[in-house]
């Protein structure tokens, strides 16, 4: 393995392609054009939700955001209610949703930096608070309607049968790449992730970078909620929960180390593709739920042992 230097994102991407054709062999008819488009579409939602998670994990300091699931739900419910079937309300609804997500993320960031609460429990507690806000605001009644333009632009085929969310995801990926590699924030984020003390000594305002990162994570999760609504067209109270741990898994499968300081969004995008493929494949095999869960767990373990390993103590 030593001579072979494949970057984890590339491995994940190759794995995704291999899995797709393996699916075609195991289940004839799986590996066709429309299925490929469908998988990329589903992966796009997970990918967008995982973007903020990527940033938070790169920032290090045990960084993790367990509130993304709840924020996805809140985002979708807010847009659902504000838009209420009118195309003209999409932009205001998106603005309100992004602001709400950013606000929640900012509280996470302040709790982590200013008060010193460990990210895991801070964001977990925040997930509870957001869940609580959803219940208070909706009182269990989910009134609203998605705008027709949303499903046209997000989930319906746009060009060559490819839905809009795929293009949005590619542009979005480019923007995150720019943010990470071509801005001062990106450089500071990696510096903070590698070592907070040296970052501080070289003039990085560490708390600000961390707060900005959690704020971005909240905002991007809310954007994910907007996108998911464009796909599902309806909302429910635990809509976002199924994205929470997969968002972390996508980041790790994409080669970003949980200790922080290194990683890329390209990796997370490949990770999201791999995870979505595995779940689609297992669904296509029509295994009973018990076995589907066991196989999913085993595959995740194998994936992690391929390149999710930490350095040995001897090294």
């Amino acid at each position, binding site marked *: 393995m030593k001579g072979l230097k494949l970057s984890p994102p590339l491995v994940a991407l190759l794995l995704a392609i291999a899995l797709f054709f393996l699916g075609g062999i195991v289940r004839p008819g799986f590996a066709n054009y429309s299925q490929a488009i469908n998988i990329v579409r589903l992966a796009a939602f997970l990918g967008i939700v995982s973007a903020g998670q990527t940033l938070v994990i790169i920032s290090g300091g*045990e960084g*993790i955001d367990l509130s993304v699931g709840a924020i996805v739900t809140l985002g979708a419910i807010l847009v659902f209610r504000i838009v209420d079937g009118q195309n003209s309300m999409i932009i205001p609804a998106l603005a309100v949703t992004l602001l709400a997500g950013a606000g929640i993320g900012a509280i996470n960031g302040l*709790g982590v930096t*200013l*008060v*010193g*609460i*460990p990210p*895991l*429990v*801070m964001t*977990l*507690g*925040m*997930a*509870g*608070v957001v*869940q*609580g*806000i959803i*219940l*208070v605001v909706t*009182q*269990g009644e989910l009134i609203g309607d998605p705008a027709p333009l949303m499903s046209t632009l997000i989930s319906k085929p746009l060009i060559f049968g490819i839905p809009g969310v795929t293009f949005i995801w590619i542009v979005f990926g480019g923007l995150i790449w720019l943010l990470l590699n071509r801005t001062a924030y990106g450089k500071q984020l990696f510096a903070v992730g590698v070592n907070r003390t040296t970052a501080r000594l070289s003039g990085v305002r560490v708390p600000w970078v961390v707060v900005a990162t959690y704020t971005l994570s909240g905002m991007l999760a809310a954007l994910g909620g907007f996108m998911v609504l464009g796909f599902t067209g309806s909302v429910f109270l635990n809509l976002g929960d199924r994205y929470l*741990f997969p968002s*972390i*898994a996508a980041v*790790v499968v994409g080669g970003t*180390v*949980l200790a922080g300081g290194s990683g890329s969004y390209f990796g997370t995008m490949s990770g999201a593709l791999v995870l979505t493929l595995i779940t689609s494949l297992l669904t296509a095999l029509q295994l009973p*739920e*018990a*076995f*589907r*869960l*066991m*196989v*999913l*767990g*085993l595959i*995740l*373990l194998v994936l*992690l*042992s391929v390149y*999710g*390993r*930490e*350095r*040995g*103590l*001897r090294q």
Partner: protein
Amino acid sequence: MNTIKLQKLTFRHPYLFALALLVIALGVNFYLQPNLFEQRVLSGNLRIFMPLMILTAGQAIVIMGGGIDISVGTIVSMVNALLVTLITRDSTAAEIILAISLGVGAGILAGALNGICVSFLRLQPIITTYATSFIFAGIALWILPRPGGLMPSELTRLYRANPLGIPLTIWVAAVLILLWVGLRATRYGRYLFAVGGQAEAAYATGVPVTLVRFSTYVLAGIMSALAALALTLSTGTGDPRIGNDMTLPSVVAVVLGGTRLSGGQGGIAGSLIGVVILGSIRNIISFANVPTWWQTFVDASIIIVALAGPGLVRLIRRRGQSS
């Protein structure tokens, strides 16, 4: 000078803040529920806390050793499914003991799988135990596809016992704390803190880091199985998803109890106090007549404030000093 003393005190007794929180929470709880300390109400409350207490003790060991176990709740589900399938109303005592041993054995195996992946294969704990949680959840569903089963009433009555007039949960908590105090004094206890605090330094000084890490997950597996036993006796029935929602509260309880998530420090007593605080907050909300739709929000907000407590105290102290 004073701050240094306080820091030393909180370092040596990390559960001091938890103890203060406990007194406040129980005080408010008692004000809203005046019969709280009557034997019947108290032991009823404690019975509800017992499964999470046992589970949290296991989680605390893993966290002190520098890891985390996201799969403990699904191990509870798995062992619960196993117990209700093996034990029926006409099981003999020998069969029941065999079933419980098998349940604990399943817990050990599950913990060993986690331990092998995290310590020998060096996979990242949070995401590894997330992956194994699918395996355990799948096995639970495979053993018991839908909720059902009935425990013999002799067994469930045993769970309601108050030996020597003291609720069973107090006995269990006392045993857990005594075991921990004993364990902490041994070489293993020192190794545990060394591995959780500074794994590299521990390795350099000859601590068997891999083995100690492995053992924490096995211990968590055993505790999860025992928590499943308590839960099964408490509900008297089985549900393949019953424990899944217990994982995250177990982590919160450990942190509330003064154990740092970064490892190398902490204790069991604080973690058990953390469980009682969580339960007490629930009680307060239900007795304070908080409107139904507000309950989740109030519950989560109080937990965040409680988590923020030590940090806020430090922050105010620093402000006070600098001015």
